[in-house]
């Protein structure tokens, strides 16, 4: 497929790297658990590896509550991590606050999930952007410098003419405009990496498209490394170079976007892709997914299933899936495409009963 070649951007320098990133949120104990010694925790993120490169977009998809936002917040150092490592240009970083945090924030910026919630309703756009510029010393020396920097920012996110937007309050802007202000604010820090958490989920398709194009443009012009978190798999295909799939706090599949979306390997990814709405599957010939496939609730993250976390819902589950945590396995169709699934371990498949393996 030619499109794959095209979508693949030249591998740039690694900006931000997560290695074995883990986050557990402690849970308040119940009364009757007081005498038992266990301490419960939400296993929001477990052992996540992720690499952001200059000029590349990495998409992170997965079901609700699978830990996508948590990964972004961990990368932005907004949460302390339970385990693992975050490397900025190869250096381990752990910052909590103060100037170290600001220095980190200057290089890694986050765009929050909800454009309606992430702008302070009492401040003007000018205030939001000025702060971002000033904190990171990008405001210049004089008022004129600042004014120019502001205009520059707004122009970059295509909010022109700038003066029309500068003195507005967030509620006076449309969702798409707000989203772009949020992006402008992140750009004000002149970062190397941008963590965009569902930046378009609230917007209608036409506005959504505008924002995505903007991000793509920024990536290309400013050589940004972007993490793009979304529910909308189609947009991941359209917009990201790499796509990673998360399920219940773990990465289950990764690879370049076209491959992951067109030839998904992991059963969960397949379920995801199959579930995505498809206008070509027209009403009337609706083919509701067979009841037994992927049905059931997402797993509890307090007591995640043993072995592969997807196994209770997996149509192709084998005995080993219940006990052993699957490791990353190369699929082999396209370089870099991997899945954490025993189906791709030949030894396992061979030892499984024929019936089980056939489901593949």
């Amino acid at each position, binding site marked *: 497929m030619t499109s794959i070649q095209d979508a693949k951007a030249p591998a740039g320098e690694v900006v931000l790297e997560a290695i074995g990133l883990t986050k557990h949120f402690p849970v308040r104990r119940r009364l009757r658990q007081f005498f038992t010694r266990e301490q419960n925790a939400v296993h929001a993120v477990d052992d996540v590896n992720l690499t952001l490169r200059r000029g590349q977009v990495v998409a992170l998809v997965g079901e609700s509550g699978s830990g996508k936002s948590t990964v972004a917040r961990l990368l932005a150092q*907004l949460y302390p991590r339970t385990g693992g490592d975050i490397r900025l240009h190869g250096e381990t970083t752990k910052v909590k606050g103060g100037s170290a945090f600001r220095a980190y924030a200057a290089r890694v910026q986050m765009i929050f*999930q909800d454009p309606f919630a992430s702008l302070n309703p*009492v401040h003007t756009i000018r205030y939001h952007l000025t702060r971002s510029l000033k904190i990171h010393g990008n405001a210049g020396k004089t008022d004129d410098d600042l004014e120019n920097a502001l205009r520059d920012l707004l122009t970059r996110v295509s909010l022109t003419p700038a003066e029309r937007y500068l003195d507005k309050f967030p509620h006076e802007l449309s969702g798409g405009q707000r989203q772009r202000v949020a992006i402008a604010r992140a750009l004000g820090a002149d970062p190397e990496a941008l963590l965009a958490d569902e930046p378009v989920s609230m917007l209608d398709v036409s506005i959504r498209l505008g924002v995505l194009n903007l991000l793509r443009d920024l990536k290309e012009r400013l050589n940004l490394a972007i993490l793009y978190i979304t529910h909308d798999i189609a947009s991941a295909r359209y917009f990201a170079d790499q796509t990673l799939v998360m399920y219940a706090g773990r990465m289950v599949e990764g690879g370049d976007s076209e491959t992951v979306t067109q030839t998904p390997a992991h059963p969960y990814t397949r379920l995801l892709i199959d579930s995505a709405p498809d206008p070509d599957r027209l009403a009337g010939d609706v083919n509701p997914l067979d009841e037994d496939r992927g049905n059931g609730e997402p797993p509890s993250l307090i007591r995640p299933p043993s072995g592969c976390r997807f196994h209770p819902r997996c149509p192709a589950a084998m005995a080993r899936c219940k006990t052993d945590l699957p490791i990353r396995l190369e699929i082999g169709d396209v370089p870099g495409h991997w899945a954490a699934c025993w189906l791709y371990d030949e030894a396992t498949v061979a030892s499984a009963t024929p019936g089980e393996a056939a489901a593949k």
Partner: protein
Amino acid sequence: MTIPTSSTAQVIPGQGAMAAPEPAKPAKAKRQRFLFLKNKKAAFGLIILGVYVLFAIIGPWVTPYDPDARSNDLIQPPSADHWFGTTHLGQDVFSQVLDGTRPVVFVGFLAGTIATVLSVIIGITAGYLGGKTDDTLSALSNVFLVIPAIPLMIIITSILDNASNLLIALIIGLTSWSWNARVLRAQTLSLRRRDYIEASRATGEKTWRIIGFELLPNLTAVIASGFIGTVIFAVLSLITLAFIGIVSAAGWNWGTILFWAQGQQALAQGAWWWFVPAGLAIAFLGTALSLINFAIDEFVSPRLRSAGKTKLKTASGGTVRMRIGFTPVLSNSAEPHTHARAIPINTDGATPVARKVGN
């Protein structure tokens, strides 16, 4: 196959020739600013308050008599000479009420300010920082909440020789912040996890700036109504203390008037004019402040603001009452139409409508 992507210019709305001309901006801002005054409650409250503040400032200079001056008109009912009558010493009650406005307003607002500042500092810090700081500050405000305010004030004022109004305001202010601090802490706790606070942290703002510039403005309504509540509380406290003869700084306030009136059993003597005006003055001041408080609530909370409007004017001048759950229907006639013609509905379903239906 190469897929061309749309150009930015093409898809970003609001650009170039496609952008609709903006409506004149300043007019809108102005409208916003005076919206507060458009609220009838606010306007009324502010007018009353204005009168009080005016008399707090000029009161002592415009009193018709020296409020202390004795005369031979002992216990006279209201007359043209003495609008509110006289006391057992022949003092002019009206002058005393006027003269007494200043300390009441002064103590009320100063104490309100002190308590508000304290509650803001303590409540917000506790709520935002959490952890040990929160525990310590919460314990502190709980201690102040637990100690009964009026007795505490009585005790503290009696330490002081001849407490001045300033001191009394200080004492009231210092002992009455805890309730607001609690409220603010709770509010801050709920605000602190808002995305825009997290976002400003992610931008790299310093903690004090987040508290001062991101959180605080969002708490204006809570702070304002806390302030007004404390002012009312402070006024009532001052009056109470003066009434039981604890606060006794030289000069008049409404509590002192009530104290004298009660000491002389004004009502039993039939001298209602001595006792009633000061109490009414307090009640009206409180009412004015409460009205402003409502208005602030409604003004700041968009929910209450739109929900606060319960009547709409139609173009033809009629009014429509808004009801939650039953949207008013205006028929094409100008007649306001808030409920439809009553049509009994049968259990088996269909009821023809008075209006002709069908093609």
